[in-house]
């Protein structure tokens, strides 16, 4: 049993970090390791018992780690490389504190990078609902989130979203280059692995469209992907599918031949949400692919997406009950 120091140990390479959650039997998770090096900073507040802790298989505590950077953003040429490891039976909340700002680069070839490698053991669960990445004008940024699921098990709910820049300053996708890659791999014995999902977004000058990037984005200033998988999120995944199914048909009309019945609270909520979606110019879709539910969304303004995501996740409720209210901090 290692002694958990209140002062994090340092690793040798700049931007490197590591988070490891172990299980102290029978059901007490401990932060075995939280280490980081400039410009990355990790903050782990006290762990709290999750609202569902009295249920079977629930851990007695849920740890939270904030991923921070000095100056609240990533400067040209910075490279961050974080490894996260969850043992069986543990849960972890990863958060950011404000949007990840990407600062201007002197040259498009100087690319800032952020790389995250996550290893999930069976019966572990990660929720990663960060603030969006906000690349300023004239930036080059590339990030990757690679999730390794032991035997394809483990529960994962991760959001990856990006905004058009500082809209208040008139920035509208005036970036050089933005790449974000999410991959989920099934890890098998003997080092064999199989790609389960790859979600790769590439915004650069290629594509022969003869259009500015902003035009390619069709007036949207936020794009996001929510990836949901695993037993802990089964009801959340189903919720997104059901709500997508319940969405009114595009171009449909009310012919007045449907019998109006007293709407249930859920139906009332849905009506109100759909109205907000229309006002915020929010588009979304959900699909059940290869054991995942993959949700894509876009809106005219950042707040539209943030409010929508919070609204959906709260209404369903299972993230809050498994991780506590704090898991949704970045959606406030």
């Amino acid at each position, binding site marked *: 049993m290692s002694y958990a120091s209140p002062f994090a140990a340092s690793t040798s390479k700049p931007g490197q970090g590591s988070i490891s959650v172990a299980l102290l039997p029978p059901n007490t998770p401990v932060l075995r390791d939280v280490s980081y090096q400039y410009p990355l900073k990790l903050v782990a507040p006290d762990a709290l018992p999750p609202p569902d802790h009295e249920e079977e298989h629930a851990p007695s505590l849920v740890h939270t780690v904030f991923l921070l950077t000095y100056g609240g953003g990533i400067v040209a040429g910075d490279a961050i490389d974080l490894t996260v490891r969850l043992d069986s039976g543990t849960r972890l909340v990863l958060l950011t504190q404000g949007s990840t700002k990407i600062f201007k680069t002197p040259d498009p070839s100087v690319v800032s990078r952020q790389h995250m490698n996550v290893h999930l053991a069976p019966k572990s669960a990660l929720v990663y609902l960060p603030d969006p990445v906000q690349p300023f004008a004239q930036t080059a940024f590339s990030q990757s989130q690679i999730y390794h699921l032991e035997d394809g098990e483990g529960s994962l709910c991760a959001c990856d979203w990006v905004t058009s820049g500082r809209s208040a300053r008139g920035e509208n996708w005036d970036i050089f280059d933005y790449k974000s890659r999410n991959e989920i791999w099934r890890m098998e014995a003997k080092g064999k692995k199989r790609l389960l999902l*790859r979600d790769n977004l590439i915004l650069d000058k290629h594509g022969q469209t003869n259009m500015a990037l902003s035009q390619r*984005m069709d007036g949207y200033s936020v794009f996001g992907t929510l990836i949901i998988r695993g037993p802990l999120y089964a009801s959340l995944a189903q919720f997104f599918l059901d709500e997508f199914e319940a969405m009114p*048909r*595009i171009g449909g009309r009310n012919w007045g031949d449907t019998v109006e019945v007293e709407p249930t609270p859920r139906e009332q909520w849905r009506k109100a949400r759909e109205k907000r979606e229309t006002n915020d110019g929010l588009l979304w*879709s959900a*699909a059940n692919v290869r054991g995942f539910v993959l949700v894509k969304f876009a809106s005219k303004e950042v707040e539209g997406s943030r409010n929508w995501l919070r609204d959906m996740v709260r209404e369903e409720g299972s993230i809050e009950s498994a991780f506590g209210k704090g898991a949704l901090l970045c959606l406030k």
Partner: protein
Amino acid sequence: MGANANDAQSLKDEIAELERRLTDAKSQLGEAIPDQTRSASGNDAALHALLLLSDSALPLGSFAFSSGLESYLAHHKVSPPSASQLPSFQTFLRLSLSTLASTALPYVLAAYRNPEDIETLDNDFDASTPCTVARRASTAQGRALLAVWERSFRAQYTHETVDPSQRNGSIEHSQHLASTALTSFSAALRTSDHLNAHLAPLWGLVTNVLSVPPSDSAYLFLFSHARTVISAAVRASVMGPYQAQAVLASAELQERIKKLVAEGWNKKVEDAGQSVPVMDLWVGRHEKLYSRIFNS
């Protein structure tokens, strides 16, 4: 009469000589820049195959798909409704080609070059296709291509059994590999739950077996997509058939496809990805349209 025969003979000789020099020059160029300069036009077998594959009667069922056009038009209502949708369509066509080139083209070329990787490529392409609508369109056409191969092409293209000892050219070797990979893939497809038969990697494989040069294979892949989308536009009343041919014939489209092939030529499949994120939403929301005439 005799003079005419002499003239004809000398002309024939001259043609033969010019053809020989052309072949020489091409082979020299071919050594300098391997794949890209081999073109179907100088090669009868490849030209024949190219014509087969570019025929709109090729039963892939492509006409059933609009690749998001129908949904795009529903999301971009023009006002007044009588206004032309043509400018809006032109935008869509560019975005759609760009998306296809960034997501699928690397898989076409990878399967062409490494036929033995077909199962992994099929899996990885499936893992990279984020919505059910696009998957359905891709696997439906992929399976159809496989059926055409089995029922129509295979007899022709595997019976030219050259004595293995004479199979010294690397091109023939690669074709042999591709043909073997195709056969085992279509056998495995019947038993495995993991295989999907996506169009892009299978296209690379089939064009390899049919000895279509890779640059032509890539060009035709993008061209066929443009043709399918344009044909869908005709049926969606965006434009008339003559306008459609004009778009298809335009130097602009030709130039765009050529440049997209060049851009994607060395792109690795790991780096394939979505360059037009809103496309995923249009395609994904197709199933929410109140009325539909296409399957995607």
